[in-house]
């Protein structure tokens, strides 16, 4: 079976979460014996063609002038489509086309019709979800493209049941056309030797419990709820400190908020950190807190689980499915500092409970969020689609 993956980002070009998703998924599919070709945008310093752990990567010219991100994205995809045609002819055809989001989906629709091969699309997010509503013509246009893409796809894959409902309702997709396959995490990346105190001392005093927040500093990530919960935690005699990893437009607002609470020395904004430091931070943190107000999946939760760090999350979106309350972490209602403080205190005070949820969470990672299993489920979708395709009459002649 030969599958063409279309993605607008692929390492070393990393902008959102799609790059690492396609990177891990494509390598796991190759380990299952599927021939995977990835077509993606070019990037300074990256090779035009290369083979990474068996994945054939083809990077296409992505420069294109235009008056908006939309027109750039569309013209880039026409380049992607043209180069994919050359690639498909060179490798003598593909069995399936797998697109990721609308940023490669338009090229996928074109290729589907040119070669009459089934198109499968993973909807990682939606324009409606990203902007919390459709407010401008540009967003409406992207929304329509997403709708069109789901219509043209043989199957749509989402990474949570929450996103399945979201996509079904918003983009008018029949539910039996949507498959739910979660994102994965590679636990081995979190298993490395390092100097615990050397890392920890960079972020907090020895007596302070580290409450780790990882995410862009935007309203929907809910850092304000965590800062509002701090006084209650400190008031209960637990010395804790918020370490916020990530950058964003709301940085000054959150900083001012911490100052107003008189907690400037208890909230540390560290901005972007490199991958190694982030993984080490998960290992040294006492609790990872994900107080999001909107979250299609919540990859941060998986990373904490893989690093044996206990989790407190708000019960929204994909987080709701990843975390089992008092089983693999603690769930609290959104925008509720009191509940958040209570959950954090319980984990810090009760080490037996902490160990119980951490071990459960790690076991869940090993099975539910294992890339090999995800590749198996994805291959199952491929097989089902190819079977239906073989039974039908829509084929190249």
């Amino acid at each position: 079976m030969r599958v063409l993956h279309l993605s607008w980002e692929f390492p070393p070009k990393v902008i959102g979460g799609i790059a690492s998703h396609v990177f891990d998924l494509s390598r796991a599919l190759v380990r299952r014996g599927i021939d995977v070709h990835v077509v993606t945008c070019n990037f300074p310093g990256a090779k035009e063609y290369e083979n990474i752990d068996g994945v054939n990567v083809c990077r296409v010219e992505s420069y294109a002038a235009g008056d908006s991100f939309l027109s750039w994205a569309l013209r880039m995809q026409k380049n992607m489509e043209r180069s994919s045609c050359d690639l498909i002819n060179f490798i003598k055809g593909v069995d399936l086309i797998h697109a990721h989001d609308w940023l490669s989906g338009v090229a996928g629709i074109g290729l589907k019709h040119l070669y009459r091969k089934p198109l499968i699309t993973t909807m990682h997010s939606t324009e409606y979800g990203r902007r919390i509503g459709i407010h401008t013509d540009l967003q409406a246009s992207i929304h329509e493209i997403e709708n069109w893409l789901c219509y043209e796809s043989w199957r749509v894959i989402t990474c949570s049941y929450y996103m399945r409902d979201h996509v079904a309702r918003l983009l008018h997709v029949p539910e039996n056309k949507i498959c739910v396959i979660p994102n994965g995490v590679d636990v081995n990346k979190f298993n490395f030797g390092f100097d615990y105190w050397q890392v920890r001392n960079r972020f907090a005093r020895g007596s302070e419990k580290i409450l780790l927040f990882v995410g862009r500093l935007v309203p929907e990530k809910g850092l304000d709820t965590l800062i509002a919960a701090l006084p209650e935690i400190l008031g209960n005699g637990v010395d804790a400190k918020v370490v916020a990893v990530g950058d964003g437009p709301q940085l000054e607002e959150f900083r001012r908020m911490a100052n107003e609470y008189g907690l400037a020395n208890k909230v540390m904004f560290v901005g972007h950190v490199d991958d190694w430091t982030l993984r080490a931070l998960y290992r040294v943190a006492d609790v990872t807190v994900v107080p999001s107000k909107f979250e299609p999946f919540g990859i941060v939760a998986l990373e904490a689980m893989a690093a044996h760090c206990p989790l407190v999350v708000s019960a929204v979106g994909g987080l709701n499915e990843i975390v089992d309350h008092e089983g693999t972490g603690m769930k609290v209602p959104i925008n509720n500092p009191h509940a958040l403080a209570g959950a954090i205190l319980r984990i810090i005070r009760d080490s037996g409970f902490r160990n119980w949820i951490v071990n459960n969470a790690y076991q869940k990672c090993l099975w539910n969020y294992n890339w090999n299993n995800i590749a198996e489920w994805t291959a199952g979708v491929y097989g089902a689609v190819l079977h239906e395709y073989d039974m039908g009459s829509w084929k190249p002649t």
Partner: protein
Amino acid sequence: MRVLILTSEYPPKRLGNVSDHVSTLAHELVKRKHEVELVVLDDLRQEFEDVSGVHVHRVANPIKTHPMASVLTYAVTASVPVEAESSNIIYFYRQQQKSIDVVHAHEWPMIYPAISLKHAFYIPFVLTFHSIEGHRCHDSFSAVSIAIKEIEDMGMWESNEVIANSGWLKDELLRYYGGGHWGKMNVVWPVGKDWVDQVISIYQKVAR
């Protein structure tokens, strides 16, 4: 010869003169015993029609909202249904062991679909310029104008033969997009009796 004509206007849709030009070309081709398949972008009519031998396939753009009414995003999204319908036509003929000999694209919105068909099916394409962006938006350096010029430039490179409607337009194309293209330039003045024969001779130059 079996020709696939791609155009953004065909009667009754009229944006400019291209509509009637393409109509005349298609009917004259049919009179000379050539087979004509024609794919046209038409958001108001989506029926297949056999207009005295010309097979007219009308397709609509599935995307209705375009930021700032952008002609650029409209044209690029519309290129996909044009490709899809063209592919259907190509597979229809393949089933009968027949093929399309040449694709004839008119104006820049049809450059992207013609390129895709060339790369996917190895069908040569002839590109007719009725006007160019540099004249439509004089001295414009707006992002949309630059993008359309890039697409026209790409069409100059990818097409097998280029037809200009006048010697002056040919000179302008070479001035804008580089004199290196002179070898594939043709001037067909679409007036009089024999201009369609000139077009056919250009088809014969590139047809497989």
